[in-house]
């Protein structure tokens, strides 16, 4: 993958984003309003939930949910960005214009989502900064190296699902079942808004098979309890297994989907 090509995609997407300056403001505002809402909700649920939240730094509901919200945005990008980039390229014809250049499809696809990942990372920082500056979110004990490792593993474990989703769209255009299913299940069962201990036992078993469950637990332990990478070995191992199995599988499926799209003539259809 040539660096100058990757940089070209990044600059393209940055300039595109900068052409909508108000969008930056509203993205920040959206994070702020979301935090205000959960801050007051956190004051409401104090006490009754203390047992369930004891494992997360002892700061109550607000720090717990802030990490959940921030990582949910990141997961959303990992799940949806590739399929959105592919859909946009197919819809406008820019995908064909790129495919006639001597640029491998893998470079096109992965470079097309780089800016979105950087943007999603910045959103996490905005969540943490707003939380710390305005609502007393405790950042003092965070282990940032562990947090960075958890983010990387979250990306590697979820990106294959996004690649599978894009593969589906290349051939069937719409109705992708992967991101909807994983996205909804993760929001419900992975523990974005509430600790898994409040779920019935059998649902906790289901949640174990979602990579996002382990990503959330790992990031919360890193940020709220200052756990080191070694102390998060269970989460690191589980997310690594998801990534090791799913990444090559998804790339093979994507390659097959491109071949089929060329055979079926669906690259420029939408």
């Amino acid at each position, binding site marked *: 993958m040539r660096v100058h090509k990757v940089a*070209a995609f990044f*600059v*393209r997407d940055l300039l595109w984003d900068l052409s909508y300056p108000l969008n930056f403001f509203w993205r920040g505002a959206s994070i702020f309003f979301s935090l205000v809402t959960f801050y007051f909700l956190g004051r409401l649920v104090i006490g009754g939930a203390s047992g369930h939240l004891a494992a997360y730094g002892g700061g109550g509901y607000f720090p717990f949910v802030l990490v959940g919200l921030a990582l949910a945005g990141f997961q959303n990008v990992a799940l949806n960005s590739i399929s959105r980039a592919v859909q946009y390229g197919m819809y406008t014809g*820019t995908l064909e*214009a790129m495919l*006639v250049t001597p640029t491998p499809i893998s470079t096109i696809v992965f470079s097309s989502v780089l800016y979105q990942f950087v943007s999603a990372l910045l959103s996490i920082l905005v969540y943490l900064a707003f939380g710390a500056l305005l609502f007393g979110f405790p950042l003092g004990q965070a282990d940032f190296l562990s947090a960075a490792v958890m983010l990387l593993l979250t990306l590697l474990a979820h990106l294959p699902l996004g690649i599978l989703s894009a593969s589906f769209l290349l051939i069937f255009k719409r109705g992708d079942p992967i991101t909807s299913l994983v996205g909804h299940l993760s929001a419900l069962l992975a523990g974005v808004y509430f600790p898994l201990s409040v779920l019935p036992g059998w649902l906790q078993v289901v949640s174990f098979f979602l990579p996002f469950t382990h990503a959330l637990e790992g990031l919360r332990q890193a940020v709220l309890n200052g756990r080191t990478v070694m102390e998060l070995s269970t989460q690191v191992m589980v997310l690594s297994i998801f990534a090791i199995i799913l990444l090559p599988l998804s790339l093979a499926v994507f390659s097959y989907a491109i071949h089929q799209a060329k055979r079926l003539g669906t690259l420029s259809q939408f």
Partner: protein
Amino acid sequence: MGTTPAVAVSRLSKFFPLITLRRLLTGTWQQGVWALQEVDFELFPGEVLFILGPNGSGKTTLVKLIAGLLAPTNGRISVHGLDTARFPLQVKRRLGYITCNEYSFYGRLTGWRNLAFFAQLQNLDPKTVIPPVVETLRLTEYLDRRFFTYSTGIKRRLDIARGLLHQPDILLLDEPTTNLDPLSAAKVRQLLIEIQARGKTMIIVTHRLEEVQKLGGRVAIVKEGRFQEVTREAGENLEELYARMVEENIHAGS
């Protein structure tokens, strides 16, 4: 005329299966449409081939197959002797595909940024390759404006500029004057004449017979997936010839 064809197409066929869930479940997914059948031709460096034919006859499919955007069902395409299936990246360096799709740019970015992006995908330095191309196409004054502010004629010229950035030997143009007003179409036609004078090999899909008359070159008609090259006698009326050819059934190999 060189000995190795710039483009050689041999027994090329393209079948589009029509896949639906019901067909997958009932095992009838093999049904579909033959978009092209048994196409054969050779085009030598510097030659221009016009491809005419009714809508939906397979003209765009043929150009997309040569550009590598579609995979042939049968047959072989080679560019300067290189098989497009085996050497796709090498072939792409020698081909310029002008999509003539005005949406295939980034509307919020300037003309310069659009060209710079595609130049970088061609492994080229934008500052070196863009100025001479845009000067030739008389686009320099527009480059600082956002793409969405352009008229259709300027968009089309930028499309041609994109296809010329890497100085390809062969240009593929899919209806280069469609949707243009007569003046803009005349400008694009003039540009094609200038490009032709530089010895480029061109395959031009068109519905406009005046393009064939102005530029001159070989003519082929595609109808219902059948390709037939037309041999014109001196002074023969192209319009009448086209009408006759399209009304008749064209049989492969005839």
